[in-house]
């Protein structure tokens, strides 16, 4: 893609669509609903209301339908470029993970498959079963083989996740390089770093070994494995991470538990995504819109899941992420 290629139609459409995004205020209102039914009813007035659900337990379907609609709408705006794909690979790899685990465990994984990847679910299932990678473009066949082989050796499903996560990020990074857009490249790099930081914290909390961090370290971000391992092995790992570009994030939130840190990470990413708000003709706002929708869907999912389990309003509100608008 030429660096200064402009997309007035796509950006203007997306700007108009931004009106349908839920503001943080609106999300808070939904969080204050007295029960699940009321929350669903409030969502009915928004873009999510297009899917009528008979049972409140089917809320996941409502969110999935809406996200899929968004992906299709945005992909249609810039038909010749493949920007949107970068954000869809994670859905593809999620499906591969589910399908592989289904294969090895014989548990029905169908309900866990997500739509909205670059490859339709049925096509993915059929070709993955046959190991026909020619039909699965953008999927790293070697990684799938490695994941299966490693599982066969270790009988530990964790490796399916770590190997495929790495493959997913590698695919994203490759696509971002090809696209040559700084905004996307930086986003992918930041996402890698954040994922690594989350792994570090999780492994630390679970009191596992440093080797595990090495296994799930995603290559390609700004934080090196050496640095993360040094932090992991040091007494006060936050002190080590303070020197990095994520210093404030680590210093303020890492000590407060995993849930808080995860939210802070999402907010950190959103603050980066928000930079696209001031771009007018270049494709950044189009990508930002996809990310904004994904974050919104995550918030809606958090709120509804909490409502379903009667979790206190204040706790729900704490967990609602920053929104794009």
């Amino acid at each position: 893609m030429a660096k200064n290629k402009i997309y007035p139609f796509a950006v203007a459409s997306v700007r108009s669509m931004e009106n349908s995004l839920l503001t943080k205020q609106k999300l808070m209102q939904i969080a204050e609903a007295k029960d699940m039914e009321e929350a669903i009813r409030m969502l009915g007035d928004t873009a999510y209301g297009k899917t009528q659900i008979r049972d409140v337990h089917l809320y996941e379907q409502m969110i999935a339908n809406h996200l899929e609609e968004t992906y299709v709408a945005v992909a249609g705006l810039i038909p010749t470029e493949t920007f949107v794909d970068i954000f869809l690979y994670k859905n593809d790899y999620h499906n591969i993970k589910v399908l592989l685990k289904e294969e090895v465990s014989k548990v029905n994984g169908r309900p866990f498959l997500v739509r909205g990847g670059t490859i339709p679910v049925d096509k993915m299932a059929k070709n993955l079963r046959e190991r026909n990678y020619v039909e699965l473009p953008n999927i790293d066949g070697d990684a799938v083989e490695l994941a299966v082989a490693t599982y066969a050796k270790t009988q530990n499903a964790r490796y399916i996740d770590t190997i495929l996560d790495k493959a997913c990020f590698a695919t994203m990074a490759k696509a971002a390089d090809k696209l040559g857009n700084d905004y996307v490249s930086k986003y992918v790099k930041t996402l890698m770093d954040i994922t690594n930081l989350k792994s570090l914290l999780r492994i630390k909390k679970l009191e596992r070994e440093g080797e595990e961090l090495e296994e799930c370290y995603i290559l390609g971000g700004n934080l090196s494995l050496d640095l993360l391992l040094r932090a992991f092995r040091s007494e006060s790992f936050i002190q080590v991470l303070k020197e990095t570009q994520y210093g404030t994030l680590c210093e303020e939130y890492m000590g407060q538990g995993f849930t808080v840190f995860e939210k802070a990470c999402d907010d950190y990413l959103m603050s980066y995504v928000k930079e696209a708000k001031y771009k007018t003709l270049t494709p950044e706002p189009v990508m930002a819109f996809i990310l904004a929708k994904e974050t919104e869907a995550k918030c809606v999912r958090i709120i509804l899941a909490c409502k379903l389990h009667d979790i206190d309003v204040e706790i729900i509100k704490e967990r609602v992420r920053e929104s794009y608008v």
Partner: protein
Amino acid sequence: MVESLFSGEFLALAGAAVAALAGIGSAIGVGVAGEAAAGVVSEDPNKFGQVLLLQALPGTQGIYGLLMAFLIMNKVGLLSGSMASLTMIQGASLFAAAVPIGLVGIFSGIAQGKAAAAGIMLVGKKPSEMAKGMLFAAMVETYAVLALLVSFLMYNNIQI
């Protein structure tokens, strides 16, 4: 051959052509704004009237260029059918008079198109702020008008 290229008549007509080139800027500007306008209308067809107004803003440079081209052609008598014979100095002066609006027209048209596209997106998001969007785009117009003024003053003081 070379002599005819530097004849007063040819230089004057080349000047009229350069002035008309301002239309390039307008065409690109209106095109960019038009794409943005289509994007907004695809989401909300009711905003057609508002965005059309903004889309038209970068069109003025082309009109200024046309005006200057007409003035030059009129002065040299091309339009009345009996072209005056000009010295090389006269022709070159008319050419010089056309350059400001021709050049500034191209670049300000493109720039105004971008500003208008941004204004159109503003309307897409906040329809009530349309007047502000128009103002931002209209600011660019200043420089096209200044160039036209310079072109016109030069043209006006060339004696034939």
